[in-house]
């Protein structure tokens, strides 16, 4: 029964990782860059919610404000930090992303201070009990949100014009541009979607554990990136699968006292094993390089 509880908790944190990982994977697939500031967008979303809660003490408006704020921030970051570097070496873009990440973290610390905030208004506690098994409301909410986001994105990518343009850009940016796709706009939309998902992830995290500091998104960001790589970076279902898998591994490891101190080591070891066995990730496409 303890094991089942651990799995359920894992699904819950895995759902959050999946939503963050989708942001990573979409940006990578379309802009071919690793947006390491993605985790910090989550943190900014958290603070946006915290600030809104001070004004209107309601979680839903707070979430809405956070989504809008993060979308604007994401588009701005893309426009002013990444777009001028398009076409330059991947290393320059990567370093810039890390710079943006530090900038956001430091700004948050200057504005809100280093002591963690506890927006308990966002917390959803309580659970359904079935005999010995308990399913927390927050787990159900997380899984529901993950499934909705996943289906909505699939529909968006497959059946809408901007969605199909996204696929086109990810397949071959040059060719898509020649076919009349506005790649800059598509990349901006991708960042907007990723940032909106980051705000949702912030809500899911604070709903379970209301502790908000300027490093809120740092570790989940890295875990989600790992999840995206495990699932196959660039693949949306892969990000989902990787996120859930990583969440479950983490939760099970934490629930075994002997393994608990080594949780992170185990998670990243899984990444290494998967990369050794399937270098493109679980659902990644292996592309033959032309020589």
């Amino acid at each position, binding site marked *: 029964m*303890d094991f089942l509880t*651990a799995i359920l908790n*894992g699904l819950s944190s895995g759902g959050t990782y999946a939503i963050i990982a989708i942001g990573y994977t979409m940006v990578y697939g379309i802009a071919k860059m690793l947006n390491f500031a993605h985790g910090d967008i989550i943190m900014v979303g958290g603070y946006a919610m915290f600030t809104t809660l001070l004004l209107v003490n309601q979680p839903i408006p707070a979430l809405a404000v956070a989504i809008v704020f993060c979308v604007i921030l994401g588009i701005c970051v893309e426009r002013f930090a990444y777009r001028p570097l398009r076409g330059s070496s991947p290393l320059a873009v990567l370093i810039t992303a890390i710079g943006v990440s530090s900038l956001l973290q430091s700004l948050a610390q200057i504005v809100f201070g280093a002591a*963690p905030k506890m927006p308990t208004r966002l917390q959803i506690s*309580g659970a359904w009990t079935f005999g010995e098994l308990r399913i927390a409301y927050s787990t159900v909410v997380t899984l529901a949100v993950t499934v909705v986001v996943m289906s909505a994105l699939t529909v968006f990518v497959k059946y809408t014009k901007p969605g199909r343009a996204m696929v086109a850009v990810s397949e071959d940016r040059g060719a898509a541009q020649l076919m009349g796709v506005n790649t800059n706009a598509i990349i901006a939309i991708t960042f907007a979607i990723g940032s909106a998902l980051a705000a949702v992830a912030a809500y899911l995290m604070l709903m379970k*554990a*209301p*502790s908000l500091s300027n490093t809120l998104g740092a570790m989940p960001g890295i875990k989600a990136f790992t999840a995206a790589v495990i699932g196959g970076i660039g693949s949306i279902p892969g990000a989902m699968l990787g996120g859930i898998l990583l969440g479950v591994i983490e939760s099970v490891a934490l629930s075994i006292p002997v393994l*608990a101190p080594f*949780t992170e080591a185990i998670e990243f070891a899984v990444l290494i094993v998967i990369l050794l066995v399937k270098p493109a990730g679980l659902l990644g496409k292996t592309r033959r390089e032309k020589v």
Partner: protein
Amino acid sequence: MKKFLSIVLAVLMVAGCCAALSSCSKDSETIKIGLSGPLTGDAAVYGLGVANAAQMAVDEINEKGGLNGIKLELKAMDDVNDKSKVQNNYAELISWGMQISLGCVTTQPALEFKTLSKEDNVFFMTPSASADAVRAESNGYQMCFADAKQGVAAANYVNTLNLSKIGIFYQSDLDYSTGIRNEFKANLSTGITVVEASFTTQTASNFETQIAQLRECEFIFMPIYYTPAALFMTQAKAETGIKTYYGCDGFDGIESAKGFTISEIPQKITMLTHFNSAATEGAAKTFIDNYTAKYGADTLNQFGASAYDCVYAIFGALKKAVEEGKTVDASTSASDMCEILKAQLNGGYEYTGAVTGTGTVKWTAEGFVNKEALVHVIKEANS
């Protein structure tokens, strides 16, 4: 102008000589106790508590005639909780003629003080610097519980509670936490089943899994700092299986953690301490009354209570040494004083009537304090 300046300088020099002379004449009659602590700055409340309480103890002892007529004298220097200030303070205390010391109030300066005092073999007993390393040299002693030794005191307490099962929630990548947890487990009665859950700095943002593991433990021991503790408690609000949280000095200040509404937590929250600032009887009560009458309640804290005990413990040890035929007076060198005090503390000296802990206080040969811990109830269970 030059003439005027030279007169001023001459006057200053004469004044300086007089001051030196007057202090000299005063020096020869007292046993000098030196102390360095944060008297200004963020941690001033601790330093002032220590300086005030130590002065109070010195005054009381002197009123009753001192050590067979020899009075004690205290000098407190300000280190602003900055270890780089300690060297100057120490040099000044030594040139003042410090024979015994209360060391430093806070841990980082105390570690510096430890190194400096070792060279001159100056005895010190810190009221509050709790890192294990503070007493690593043979001239250093502690009145507060050393970090890891809190585990022993906590286990002694838990052993008296008649529990069959307890939970431990600790941070596996923090020496403070694992140190207490190891000592705690080593000293716990074998009849008690332990359920353990841990976290690391990286996993300190969500305790769902750990709460699921500890859900059925009525009593949870948490040797961690208050920030993760507050998060755990907030996340576990709905857990009716958990009745009591028990922490160590890391819980100090939890009620004022940002955004944490302690009244929302239904469980009872307790912590290990050596001083009850709300005591209504005994030596602690007398100390609190006298202290607040003299210095007000703003700086009343366990640091001061501990400093008060340090002075009395040192005084008691000196008195016993004199009774045993040792010569202790204003001319005893710091190093001789150190050997005399060490012989007492390592030779079974017991300090009775302590304000901190309960009853008698002893020291191990390593300089660790050995006394009973008190349980401070931060918050009763909501009914």
